[in-house]
């Protein structure tokens, strides 16, 4: 029997408009899956639930929402998308990214290959590496974000426990914990083979436009230029899901909402 999944997210304040665009782009691309969103207002195209007054700053709230709310929905898998994501088409073999594992978070570069002065949510690559090792990661450690990830319903508890464990270790070591690292930790503890989860293994599926090239006024009309410096190079068509943090920041800084005042979700 085919596994059932839904998309979910958290979108409060100015993110609500982005979430609406995300859901609209999905619908336009032929996506028929449901969108379940923790929000502070109604969002067209989404099933919305009261996000209540939860502190979103350290990125850990998503685990609370996942365990306390989203996991009560009867799906086999939950697919998180950041609100500032657009669908260019209906993704193919989405759950295939899980392989044999219960979670998929697209992994980026190996942390020990990053420049020394790189910052991973305020941590140097060396420190990030140390904390992951201390928490028990055995394999090479990869950087990761949390703009798109999938978790199997049966693994929600273990993912949340691992995230909390990493959070506690980071805090004990005198650093500021963040949900991105906690999620990356849970992923790298549960994935078996990290190589199978590299973002580059599925260039057709998801891409984060970190340099803002895919950021013309109408993202769906932008077209796709594989010559863009950070674009996946192996295909002529854009990935099914494009995360657009730069564009979102540009638009938000142009509005009344200061970028710094917006909780970082992606």
């Amino acid at each position, binding site marked *: 029997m085919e596994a059932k999944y839904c998309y979910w997210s958290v979108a409060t304040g100015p993110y609500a408009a982005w979430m609406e665009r995300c859901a609209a782009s999905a619908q336009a691309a032929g996506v028929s899956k449901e969108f379940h969103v923790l929000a502070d207002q109604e969002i067209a195209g989404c099933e919305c639930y009261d996000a209540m007054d939860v502190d979103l700053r350290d990125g850990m709230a998503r685990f609370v929402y996942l365990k306390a709310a989203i996991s009560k929905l009867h799906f086999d898998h939950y697919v998180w998308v950041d609100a500032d994501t657009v669908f260019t088409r209906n993704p193919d073999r989405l759950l295939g990214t899980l*392989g*044999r594992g219960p979670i998929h978070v697209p992994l980026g570069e190996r942390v020990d290959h990053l420049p020394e002065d790189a910052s991973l949510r305020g941590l140097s690559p060396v420190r990030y590496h140390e904390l992951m090792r201390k928490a028990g*990661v055995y394999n090479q450690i990869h950087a990761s974000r949390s703009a798109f990830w999938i978790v199997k319903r*049966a693994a929600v508890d273990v993912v949340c426990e*691992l995230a909390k464990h990493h959070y506690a270790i980071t805090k004990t070591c005198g650093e500021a914990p963040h949900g991105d690292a906690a999620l990356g930790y849970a992923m790298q503890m549960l*994935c078996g*083979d990290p190589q199978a989860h590299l973002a580059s293994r599925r260039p057709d599926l998801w891409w984060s436009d970190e340099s803002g090239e895919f950021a013309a006024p109408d993202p769906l009309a932008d077209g796709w230029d594989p010559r863009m410096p950070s674009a996946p190079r192996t295909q002529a068509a854009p990935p099914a899901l494009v995360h657009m943090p730069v564009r979102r920041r540009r638009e938000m800084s142009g509005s009344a909402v200061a970028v710094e005042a917006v909780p970082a979700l992606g």
Partner: protein
Amino acid sequence: MKRKLAVFGAPSSVGGAATKIRDLIRLLRFDFDIGVYVAGNGFSKNQDVVRSVEYEGVALRHRSQFDKHPADVALAVCELDFFSSGIAAEITKGGTRLVWSNDMMWEFKGEAEAVREGLVSRVIFVSDVQRTAFLDMYMGIEQRLIPNYVAPGSFPLVERKSSTFAIGRLSRPDPVKYPKDFPVFYESLGLEDVCYRVQAWSEELRKKYAWHRFGPEWNLLPANKIPAAEFLSQLDLFVYPLGNGFVESWGRSTVEAMLTGCVPLVPRGHNFEQMMLHGESGFICGSFAEFKVVTQELFGNRALRLQIGRQAAHHARTVLCNEEEHRMMWLEALTF
């Protein structure tokens, strides 16, 4: 006249400490008059225990009988209540020298106090990894490093002929010995038509991995379902990822696997560097990627697999479990 040795701990063919005691009795039976002291009352009816002491000059007794049979030296192996029960103090008050072998990576209840009170004359460590863990506690106490001895005769070399390729592991069903991603780890090795065999599996482990769907390729056996030698001889590869943060003090099942001709693939660290030559008698893997490369190479190359298996068995027999070398180490450790 032979010296009198009191051994505390129940020998049997099941479990790490019990098999160690069984093999030590066999190894030292010509050098000592051995009294084997057990804590419970049911042991004299346990045929496995009784068979383990069926040698001339070896007697099985209840702990309470120790004062009627004073010994020159007492050896206690991995007895959980050995210090907390007060028996350690009883033994030593009559002048018997106590040699203690904990075998684990954690201290037992009352162990630190007993060391401070001077009850332990000499401590045996099974590896440098274990010695390091107890560095502070045993400061100033005589120490010996004697790796475990597994009787090679109990684990004969078996040439693998099964048509289904099998990988697996043998260990206590302790969840800390299993990595968080254990079933995914095995399944991600990328092998086709493979059987995954695990002993021992338990309800606790089932709960730990409740998020995973174990298919028919998995053979999860409860503790002692199949004798260790038989179980290991049915594996082609002994693939042994360990729990995150767990440290193996020695690695008995790895050596047992090697004796049967099973190729061991183990994680870096622990005591495994002392057990095998990487690429000759086993493989020490620093990451999942290394486990995968080696597994796939061995899966596709039967001749290489058999060759490494034979070399592992030879190394285990001649180097790790050399009977005479172990006997000499123990004689020295039990002589004051």
